């Protein structure tokens, strides 16, 4: 079989012949073909099996609305299921396979379901698989899913890459059919920045499928000329293979560009690009979709949309049949008969539901007026049709036209509701359209060529005027208004066989009637109950027919029934394209600490903390597990000195004459009187009085403060402070700027911290306890003049400093500190040891500041000043938040020292039942303390400060564990703070 149905003409390049395979069968086509047109040219009628009944199906349309011809393209990891053959461009070497059948396509074992159809009506699954309940997930659903469905995934990682991008324009024209080209031409000639996007690889829309003329030349020639003019203009971006799939806020549109799908290989470039288009204005010129008429066995291969038959004949030079009949309720359907006859294809009948003289004389065709097709014959391909008066007409293709539906989808993406127009028996855009959008041409119900061209121009001109661009005068393209009369006719009532409404989901007229009968009368319920309008085609050929039948059955008008809501995407968008580049290790950006390289070279194991990669511990020698390293790091630090990169903590530079007063307002505790050269710990409250961050702020000079925040809240604190500065107290002279990345900061902690730093800090700086006591800060120089900042603060509870150097010196600084510390047996420590030491010291961290707790709960209630105006202090005094029996942060140790505490355990009094009513609080943080030799924990418990020494149960139903713990001080180590002041 070699292109047996190829006929003359068309917009394909016959100078080249390409090979492709379908189900392993070798076939040939030409550049300019789609897979569908090539299959038709090769006489391949049967291309797939239906979703539910496994009915043989053929190509139904010639566009993105295709419900039937879904295939798997390519092989191996590149395999893509559910691709519409009608929009898949042919390339040399393409491989396609049919889907949803067991055994060969021609002899699908699952076709047995078709004979069970009397039992499989709408709602069958809901009604049948009710019992036993547990069977649904494990037995029924897997069986149903394996028998009903579409294509399958390769289950391999997608080897292609995808990209995203951003575009801007004055006018976005969606669709490059006659109205779109006309709109783009008007805007482009007026000097506007235009983006013209079309899903097809050949711009022109229906102009390429019809024999109508524009400006005295064929429509396709006019389109080609127009495209050439537009392509040569700098202010125009012509985007073919690009579907604008969604209309979003403020004139923003989503578009999918298929860059390499038409090539055998992507060549390492992104296969598809997901564009975000920012438009000042948009003209939707999405055209219209022809709709079918439902009649008995109207789903057989060879039953096609009349306009699609024209497309294959005129654009692709391929005829879907050699003996064709046309069934129509409108004038447009007649053009299919005429174009076929003009190409020499036999048209043996035109069946018009209307009782009127022929629209066009078709040589050789018998005209049946006021007639209907009742049934079809031919299981794997139509062989004959039966009319309502029982006449049987042999055909191998039936072209059906039930009128046209404007493609209103994008007008509905922000809840616009289409309006019904009786004169064209279709919905047109209505209600509130997305901001900046107007609609032109067939999408707006202007179904003739001349009116579409005119409206494209008019809408573009109006849009340009609206944004202050003068419209250039130019002669409008001229065409005739072709005959477009139609009547409302949805289904053939004389049919006693199943009549398909939705081919993709196997929904029949009977199913729609059943849904209404069973009470699913809203169009939204009809959709869910029958599945009509779901899946890849989103009911582009079925929705309106379905709701018209529902209206008829319910005794309502079509506008009364209304449509379901159209939502993005207009056509399917692959998950890969939505993900774009955000895959694998590039899923999100990474932030590296300044000492990352040093850490990598010195046994650092990394943990992600937000976007940061922090060293969690540094493995040494023969340490076998993380506990070995962490225990050692804690002990070495407490015994001598440890070094930790704490750069990730947020740093905010605060300057201004009112900086002190400002800090006094954003911190809950007092900051008005902090001396220069001193650091203070502070807590920040939300407006509702909940504690949300803590940190330190150092006064470097009269009007200059350096604030630190927690790593997690660095951005949030900065944002809230900017808000406070700009909106709450705009009259304060305060200036903020982040310096988090600018300074590499290291904690140097342990009894030998001072001795270590003395080797690094230049001699002129007095490091003695008297000159530089606990909570001192200052600008210093190190290593012979390098500017640095020194803070005497301690998170570990040890004698400790934090020293900061410009970040570019951070990696070197880590190396220097370790080298200088060698004589003290210094060690680097990671976040785990840091966590252990802060728990030993009883310092709160993210687990304790979890967005539910107050300063009162944290045992810092007295820090919240009521003598000043600050964020959160008023609402922190709500009675419920300051009750005496409020939860308090306490320490917990296991009664049996061998027991390992579990974070998240809830505290229950001894003897009480472990339930929510008896809940006393919960364990927030736990660690093994190598200093104490047992597990320790921090947690909140009711009236904790008065219950020291009491034994309660720590219950974790999740782990199925329970243990006795003793309530103690949260300060396990050095409760008096002697070490840190040493």
């Amino acid at each position, binding site marked *: 079989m070699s292109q047996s149905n190829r006929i003359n003409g068309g917009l394909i390049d016959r100078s080249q012949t390409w090979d492709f395979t379908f189900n392993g069968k070798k076939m040939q086509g030409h550049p300019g073909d789609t897979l569908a047109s090539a299959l038709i040219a090769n006489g391949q009628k049967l291309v797939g099996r239906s979703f539910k009944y496994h009915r043989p199906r053929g190509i139904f349309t010639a566009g993105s609305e295709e419900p039937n011809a879904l295939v798997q393209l390519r092989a191996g990891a590149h395999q893509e299921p559910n691709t519409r053959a009608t929009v898949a461009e042919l390339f040399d070497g393409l491989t396609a396979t049919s889907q949803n059948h067991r055994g060969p396509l021609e002899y699908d074992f699952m076709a047995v379901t078709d004979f069970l159809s009397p039992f499989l009506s709408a709602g069958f699954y809901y009604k049948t698989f009710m019992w036993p309940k547990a069977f649904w997930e494990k037995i029924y659903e897997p069986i149903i899913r394996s028998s009903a469905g579409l294509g399958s995934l390769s289950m391999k990682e997608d080897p292609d*890459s995808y*990209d*995203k*991008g*951003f*575009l*801007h324009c004055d006018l976005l024209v969606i669709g490059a059919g006659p109205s779109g080209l006309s709109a783009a031409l008007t805007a482009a000639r007026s000097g506007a*920045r235009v983006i013209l996007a079309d899903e097809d690889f050949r711009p022109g829309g229906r102009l390429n499928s019809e024999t109508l003329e524009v400006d005295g030349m064929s429509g396709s020639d006019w389109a080609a000329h127009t495209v050439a003019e537009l392509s040569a203009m700098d202010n125009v971006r012509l985007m073919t293979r690009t579907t604008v799939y969604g209309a979003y806020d403020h004139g923003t549109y989503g578009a999918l560009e298929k860059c390499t799908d038409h090539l055998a290989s992507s060549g390492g*470039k992104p296969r598809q*690009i997901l564009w*975000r288009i*920012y438009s000042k204005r948009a003209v939707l010129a999405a055209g219209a979709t022809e709709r079918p008429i439902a009649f008995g066995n109207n789903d057989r291969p060879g039953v096609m949309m009349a306009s699609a038959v024209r497309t294959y004949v005129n654009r692709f030079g391929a005829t879907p049949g050699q003996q064709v009949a046309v069934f129509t309720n409108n004038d447009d359907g007649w053009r299919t008969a005429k174009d076929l006859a003009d190409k020499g294809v036999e048209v043996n009948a035109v069946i018009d539901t209307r009782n009127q003289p022929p629209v066009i004389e078709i040589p050789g065709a018998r005209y049946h007026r006021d007639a209907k097709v009742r049934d079809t014959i031919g299981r794997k391909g139509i062989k004959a049709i039966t009319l309502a008066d029982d006449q049987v007409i042999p055909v191998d293709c039936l072209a059906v036209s039930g009128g046209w539906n404007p493609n209103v989808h994008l007008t509905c993406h922000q809840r616009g509701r289409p309006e019904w127009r009786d004169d064209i028996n279709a919905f047109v855009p209505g209600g509130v359209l997305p901001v900046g959008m107007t609609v032109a041409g067939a999408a707006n119900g202007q179904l003739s060529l001349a009116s579409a061209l005119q409206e494209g121009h008019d809408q573009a001109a109006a849009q340009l005027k609206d944004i202050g661009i003068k419209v250039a005068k130019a002669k409008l393209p001229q065409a005739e208004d072709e005959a477009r009369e139609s009547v409302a006719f949805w289904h053939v009532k004389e049919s006693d066989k199943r009549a398909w409404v939705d081919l993709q989901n196997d929904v029949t007229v009977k199913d729609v009637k059943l849904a209404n009968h069973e009470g699913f009368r809203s169009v939204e319920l009809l959709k869910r109950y029958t599945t009509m309008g779901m899946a890849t085609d989103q009911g582009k050929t079925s929705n309106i027919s379905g709701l018209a039948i529902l209206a008829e059955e319910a005794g309502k008008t079509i506008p009364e029934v209304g449509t379901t809501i159209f939502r993005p995407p207009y056509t399917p968008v692959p998950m890969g394209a939505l993900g774009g*580049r955000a895959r694998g290790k*590039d899923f*999100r*950006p*990474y*932030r*590296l*600490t*300044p000492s990352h390289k040093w850490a990598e070279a010195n046994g650092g194991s990394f943990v992600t903390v937000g*976007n*940061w990669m922090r060293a969690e511990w540094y493995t040494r020698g023969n340490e076998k597990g993380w506990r070995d390293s962490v225990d050692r790091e804690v002990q070495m630090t407490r015994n001598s000195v440890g070094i930790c990169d704490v*750069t990730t903590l947020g740093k905010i*530079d605060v*300057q*201004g*004459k*009112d900086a002190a007063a400002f800090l006094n307002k954003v911190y809950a505790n007092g900051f008005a009187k902090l001396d220069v050269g001193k650091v203070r710990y502070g807590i920040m409250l939300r407006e509702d009085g909940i504690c949300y961050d803590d940190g330190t702020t150092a006064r470097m000079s009269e*009007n200059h403060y350096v604030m630190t925040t927690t790593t997690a809240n660095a951005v949030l604190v900065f944002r809230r402070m900017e808000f406070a500065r700009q909106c709450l107290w705009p009259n*304060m*002279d*305060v*200036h903020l*700027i*982040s*310096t*988090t*990345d*600018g*300074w590499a900061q290291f904690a140097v902690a342990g009894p030998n911290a001072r001795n270590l730093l003395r*080797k*690094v800090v*230049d001699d002129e700086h007095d490091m003695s306890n008297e000159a530089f006591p606990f909570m001192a800060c200052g600008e210093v120089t*190190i*290593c*012979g003049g*390098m*500017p640095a900042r020194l803070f005497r603060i301690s998170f570990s509870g040890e004698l400790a400093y934090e020293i900061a*150097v*410009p*970040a*570019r*010196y*951070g*990696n*070197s600084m880590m190396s*220097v500190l370790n*080298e*200088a510390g060698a004589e003290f047996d210094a060690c680097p420590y990671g976040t785990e040891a840091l966590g252990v030491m802060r728990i030993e010291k009883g310092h709160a961290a993210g687990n304790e500041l979890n967005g539910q707790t107050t300063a009162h709960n944290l045992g810092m209630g007295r820090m919240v000043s009521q003598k000043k105006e600050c964020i959160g202090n008023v609402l922190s005094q709500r009675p419920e938040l300051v009750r005496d029996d409020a939860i308090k942060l306490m320490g917990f140790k296991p009664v049996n020292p061998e027991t390992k505490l579990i974070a998240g355990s809830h505290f229950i009094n001894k003897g009480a039942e472990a339930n929510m009513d008896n809940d006393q609080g919960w364990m927030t943080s736990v660690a093994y303390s190598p200093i104490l030799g047992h597990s320790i924990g921090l947690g909140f418990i009711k009236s904790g400060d008065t219950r020291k020494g009491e034994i309660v149960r720590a219950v974790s139903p999740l782990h199925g564990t329970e243990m006795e713990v003793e309530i103690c001080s949260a300060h396990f180590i050095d409760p008096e703070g002697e070490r840190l002041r040493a």
Partner: protein
Amino acid sequence: MPEFTLTAEPPLMGLNETFGDMVLRAPADMAIVSIALPLGGEEAALKAIKAAYGVAMPEVGQMATSKGGETLMRMSMDQGFVVFTHPTPDANAIVNAKLKGKAYTTDQTDVWCALELSGATSRDALERICPLDLHDAGFAVGEAKRTMMEHLGTIIARTDTDTWLLMSGSSSAGSFLHAIETSIKNVS
């Protein structure tokens, strides 16, 4: 002679790559100092800036270059950057001295990493990552704007017809470079 010395390792140090007609490089020794205009002292501060650099602080989103090659970049109503070539870590002291205390300054040199992308198709590459309108009509030479690229806060400045200066957080320099390189490779 101090016992220890520190060496500078800026995250993108020495980067210089060519992709077709595009060149991507990391400007060496780029110092950045922020200048905040005191509330009520704006006039005096602007005067001091003009006196120090010979050019006025530009409008928000604009850049101005001094005879000495320093670039002033106005980022907001009360904040701007001065960008200049200076290898040692004392940029803040230098700017502070020049302004004679009339404005608040903060060293931003190590807060940022910078990439300069140039070439006739550089806009095609940036289109894949930059949400802003990069067309002449929306982004003239001499403008500097804040935006996000691949989740990273970025300042993008158009320093010449086909030359763009990109600045993003130094801690995420590796991810930023990867994002820019990917954009370039995808279009070249």
